[in-house]
């Protein structure tokens, strides 16, 4: 099937999103000249391939279901926020709150991700090629996050059951987030995640696993948080 091209200099965002929401949609789509547009390719439900040729603004591919969205540029705040399934790839860097609250699917950021990457994540897998900023994986509930570079301050603050893998340094851990043993199942899980994101050359043993110490799960007198 031929690729369908949407040029955002010729077509309003509303029409592009409406076209991508058409019931039973299939095939490949290319969005040209996004010029930092917000809310591009949000709310997709069909297993289509969407390639965005350039930079996008806030919430690109937000709440994605089943679609595969590739952004050949940088992404603004909240890329793939609340994604349920499918794949979102950012070739460049991502701004804050990448993958926020996402329940499923795979988010790959080949460059760096800013603050609050994976905040409140609820089951998504996130693989970041570079570094993540402060407050990443804040209140992360479920899912896995892989950071091939370094993590900023307060990693995994108030984390629940998400698993974090960081290869580089962590500036500081947030409340209740601790380093944990890398058992064979974790090495295996990490290897699969790296492979799915195209980083199969990495040695999983070079990563450290982080997760919840589970000391904040119940209110008690000694808990000052």
């Amino acid at each position, binding site marked *: 099937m031929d690729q369908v091209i949407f040029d955002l200099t010729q077509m309003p965002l509303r029409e592009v999103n409406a076209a991508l929401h058409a019931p039973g949609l299939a095939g490949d789509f290319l969005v040209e000249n996004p010029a930092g547009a917000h*809310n591009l390719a949000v709310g997709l439900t069909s297993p289509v391939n969407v390639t965005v040729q350039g930079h996008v603004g806030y*919430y690109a591919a937000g709440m994605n279901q089943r679609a595969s969205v590739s952004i050949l540029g940088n992404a603004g705040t909240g890329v793939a*926020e609340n994604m*349920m399934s499918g794949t979102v790839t950012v070739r460049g860097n991502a701004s*804050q709150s990448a993958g*926020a609250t996402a329940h499923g699917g795979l988010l790959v950021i080949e460059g760096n991700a800013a603050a609050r990457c994976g905040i409140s994540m609820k089951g998504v897998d996130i693989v970041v090629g570079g570094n993540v900023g402060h407050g990443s994986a804040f209140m992360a509930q*479920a899912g896995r996050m892989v950071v091939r570079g370094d993590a900023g301050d307060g990693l995994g603050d*108030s984390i629940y059951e998400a698993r974090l893998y960081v290869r580089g340094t962590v500036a500081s851990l947030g409340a209740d987030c601790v380093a944990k043993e890398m058992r064979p199942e974790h090495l295996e899980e990490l290897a699969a995640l790296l492979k799915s994101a195209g980083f199969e050359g990495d040695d999983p043993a070079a990563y450290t696993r982080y997760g919840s110490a589970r000391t904040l*799960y*119940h209110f008690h007198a000694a808990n000052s948080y």
Partner: protein
Amino acid sequence: MSFTSDDRSRLGLRESATFDRATIAGIQRAAETGVYDIRGWGAKRALPHFDDLLFLGASMSRYPLEGYREACGTDVVLGGRNAKFPLRLDIPVTIAGMSFGALSGRAKDALGRGASEVGTSTTTGDGGMTPEERGQSKHLVYQYLPSRYGMNPDDLRKADAIEVVLGQGAKPGGGGMLLGQKISERVAGMRTLPQGIDQRSASRHPDWTGPDDLTIKILELREITDWEKPIYVKVGASRTYYDVKLAVHAGADVVVVDGMQGGTAATQDVFIEHVGIPTLAAIPQAVQALQELGVHRKPDGVQLIVSGGIRTGADVAKALALGADAVAIGTAALVALGDNHPRWAAEYEKLGSAAGFYDDYQDGRDPAGISTQDPQLEQRLDPVEGGRRLANYLRVLTMEAQTIARACGKAHVTHLEPEDLVALTIESAAMARVPLAGTGWIPGQGL
């Protein structure tokens, strides 16, 4: 032995106004436990409220409508500014957001039945949409909260309106709480949390931080739902004038303002009683903001929903007269279902409370089967009977509001206006911006 108040007077026992018995009990409780008091309900302190206002019925200078013969409309349209499908409600009394988790599934079911019977809306809460709730609710508002528990685009599309929640009156600036007793397997599954933990919800949204961001967020919600749904923005009453202006600038179709009497399922007592402003003080600020933006009660305007302490049709009428387009009820709806009913008096006593005083919604042992996830307790609430009771109550609220509106000569309840009101106290006159009864004086606005 325990003394009656007569005994105390005879013996010359004098209670401290500063350290009254509730205060002393609070200090003793804190000293024993080392944990702050968490409870349900809203502010319990005395506050300037709708009781401090009176209507000026028609006489010589105004012409009343016949009480039982002449029509007095009650319908309201919400969110027609941008949405393809605005909400068209038969009455201006809606059901406020209350979560499945805080409430039992049967309670949510009953709320849906009651509201649908009289043509009004219900609202989800922190924890997502249940199939029962969607199924029983003719008009369902889906809350979009900082935690995003259970948030998914399929439910977003099933909703009739979307309410972006920035805060609630019981705790402006605070996130939700649900204690472990209520995190059942189903609740935990819906929220992606471990079963039985004490859950803290975030107080800030994870992917936007201010009104400029909110503008983009609202557009995202519109794009995802193809501009079909009205978008509400809910704020807890605090800096209401500014909050409402910013909400409108951000693109809200409807603004919901929840005063400090608004209820909660679980919040620190200190938060409930000491943060936020009364509903009465918030409404005129919200109305002023809408008027200055030219969107108050205009065909393509922004509607105002007010909540926090609505109990009677008089409260409904007063909120509308001050400029609200509709009201929302939470605590009163639960009472209508059977909360705090004397039939459970013995069981309230076993829990250290009493019918009329029970506020331990956080505890999960609600004898009425409403604020619980206990399968046995939940069975005590019959959703059909609960729905019938709620529908009755909503009808009474509506008829009471109509009674007052007709007496003031209004052919629709939303035709009530501040000019129909006077205040009994200087405080309420200043807050509501209506004259002190018998005078033309509105404090702060000269003679």
